[in-house]
């Protein structure tokens, strides 16, 4: 599990701020036509303003909802499937080739097909995002289930617990740190695909749609501002999930790193 400490966070912030200052100075000194490509300060200002812009907020809420649904659906499909495939060897053997075939197919390449399949744009976006986000959760869950100590399972069996209890009380909690990592990766992937499908397939609402409209109006400041907000949201989600993992799975870190 990645661990962020105060010092490295500070250094990252200083680095980012330094780069922004250099870009701002270059823009002001006439390194490019700031009518076309706006200054850093302008973009950051726009990004701040967007957070209070009702039109953008409608789009943001739409994207957020799509993303949340996609992630929930991903978890609801991939975790049970991963538990099953991880525990039942023959099932995994049977399905493995299919997984290896489907996994490398870029989700974006499926967008034209999915557009034809769904009349509702939200359903289309969710499908595309779920398709991409499914794999990290599925693969991590299978791996996590495999990693559960056989003796931990045997212990519960020896006390007379049945397979369902063993799955629920040992396999699930034992695999949980891996599943959580998969979900964290899936959360980022889903953000990318929700916005991408909005950009490619269009629609009425969505941050991707907002960006497209800003582009057609030649508003690079709004485009980049909105893009920055998407990026910041990704960082925020990741940080929250990492913090959650560190809190919940202290036992796992202690075991794998030998420290508390």
């Amino acid at each position, binding site marked *: 599990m990645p661990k962020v400490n105060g010092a490295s966070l500070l250094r990252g912030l200083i680095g980012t701020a330094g780069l922004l200052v250099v870009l701002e100075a270059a823009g002001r000194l006439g390194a490019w036509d700031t009518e076309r490509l706006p200054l850093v300060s302008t973009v950051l200002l726009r990004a701040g303003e967007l957070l209070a812009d009702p039109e953008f907020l409608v789009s943001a809420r739409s994207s957020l909802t799509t993303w949340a649904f996609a992630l929930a659906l991903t978890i609801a499909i991939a975790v049970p499937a991963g538990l099953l495939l991880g525990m039942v060897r023959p099932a995994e053997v049977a399905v493995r080739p299919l997984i290896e075939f489907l996994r490398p197919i870029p989700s974006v390449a499926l967008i034209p097909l999915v557009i034809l399949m769904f009349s509702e744009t939200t359903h289309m976006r969710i499908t595309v995002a779920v398709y991409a986000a499914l794999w990290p959760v599925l693969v991590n869950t299978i791996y996590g289930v495999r990693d559960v*100590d056989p003796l*931990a399972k*045997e*212990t519960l069996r*020896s006390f007379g*617990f049945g397979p369902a209890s063993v799955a629920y009380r*040992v396999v699930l*909690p034992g695999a949980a740190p891996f599943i959580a990592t998969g979900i964290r990766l899936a959360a980022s992937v889903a953000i990318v695909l929700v916005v991408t499908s909005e950009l490619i397939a269009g629609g009425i609402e969505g941050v991707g749609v907002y960006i497209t409209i800003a582009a057609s109006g030649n508003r690079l400041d709004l485009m980049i501002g909105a893009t920055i907000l998407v990026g910041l949201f990704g960082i925020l989600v990741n940080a929250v999930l990492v913090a959650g993992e560190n809190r919940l799975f202290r036992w796992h870190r*202690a*075991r794998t790193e030998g420290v508390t």
Partner: protein
Amino acid sequence: MLELVDLGHNYGSYRAIDRVNLKVAQGEVVCIVGPSGCGKSTLLRSIAGLIKPTGGTVLLDGKPVDGSPENLAVVFQDYSRSLYPWMSALANVSLPLRRRGLDKKKREAAAMNALDQVGLSGAAAKYPWEMSGGMQQRVSIARALAYQPKLLLMDEPFGSVDAQTREELEDLTLRVCAHHGMTILLITHDVDESVYVGDRVVVLSKAPGTVVGDLPVQLPGPRDQIHTRELEAFVRLRAEVGRLVRGITPYRNTHGYGVETR
């Protein structure tokens, strides 16, 4: 209550145990000693229904064992791997008590009591990875004792504690089991321990393990760590078990046991 008939097990082509025959009566404490790698853990796993032996049968109360029997608890040799790192010591000990149909309060009270008996009442909230090896081992003993099984299987349960704690745990186990009428099968490397704890000592040969000695321990009870170990009968029996474990044929002369021969 427990009967092994011609029990044998192969790992692939490797024969781990061979034709083990053993009968254990209700309430008896039977110690199994044997050299490392002779198949003691394999024997215990077969009884617990965790592996399906490739030959012979395990009978519990006259019925063949299929899967894990009811009312059985195991203290595993790898105690640290058999504890759940995501649970506190208390939660680890109370988990199996769900099988007893107790509510949460009763489970925790029973678990707390067991932890107290093994001297860990202060560490109930600790996680296994915050504990020393000896403490973890005591948690796994507490878990088995709290469960109050009819048959308790213990695989070298006192290996990681200091000598004095070990003696205390031996006495505790005997006391608790006698109180609840449990039957115990205890595996140990320690010849002294087998004679002190057991009503009977069963000796397994080098691999593939098979029974080469089955000695009743007739010592005046109740056992006491100092006095019992001083008794002439104890010393003699210990020597006899020691010879059997080392594969030295006991040699009886007119003075009893003594001269070692090959």
